[in-house]
């Protein structure tokens, strides 16, 4: 019940296209949903995050769509660029009494072709 399921495992998109990565969860106690971008040999970098009382959040070319009733959320990368080629992780935060942990999906490797 603490899992976060992410799909697809890999994604190839043409430059200028839209990249869409999906995640699903079961535990309704999750209260914060961040997306991280990770380049090879680097640590994950926080990209954008959303709370369950919001249905959409946009920052530049990155948008999170959140469907609380379906327990699903997705990352949309508009006008995808070769520099966006990286591994993307969704996560969900399970917190209580001033502590908590992030539970990550399995990751999606995105390749943006020039």
């Amino acid at each position, binding site marked *: 019940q603490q899992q976060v399921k992410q799909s697809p495992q890999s994604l190839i998109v043409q430059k200028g296209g839209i990249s869409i990565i999906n995640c699903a969860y079961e535990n309704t106690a999750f209260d914060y949903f961040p997306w991280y971008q990770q380049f090879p040999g680097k*640590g994950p970098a926080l990209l954008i995050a959303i709370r369950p009382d919001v249905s959409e959040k946009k920052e530049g070319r990155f948008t999170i769509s959140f469907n609380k009733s379906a327990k699903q959320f997705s990352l949309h990368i508009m006008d995808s660029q070769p520099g966006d080629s990286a591994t993307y992780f969704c996560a969900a935060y399970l917190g209580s009494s001033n502590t908590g942990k*992030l539970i990550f999906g399995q990751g999606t490797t995105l390749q943006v072709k020039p």
Partner: protein
Amino acid sequence: DAGVTQSPTHLIKTRGQQVTLRCSPKSGHDTVSWYQQALGQGPQFIFQYYEEEERQRGNFPDRFSGHQFPNYSSELNVNALLLGDSALYLCASSAAGYQETQYFGPGTRLLVL
């Protein structure tokens, strides 16, 4: 403003040895979480330190232990290393009251032979 720093960047150990990894949180942050990331997998939560105490622990054996110092920096210790402990060890820092917003360091790549 320095971000999260970790040392060393790479480490090679043999089975049965012990290892200590170090982390300095982002300026203004007082909470440190440690994660293990196996190749091709998402990070897995090990434990979290706040006010020099372990506040929460993931599904990792007692061979994994940690410490937080008064300056908020932290150490991760792993005893009796196994081949399966080979992974990228990530430290993430956050601020009290905002523990969900975690910023990761570059990680320490541990190889156990």
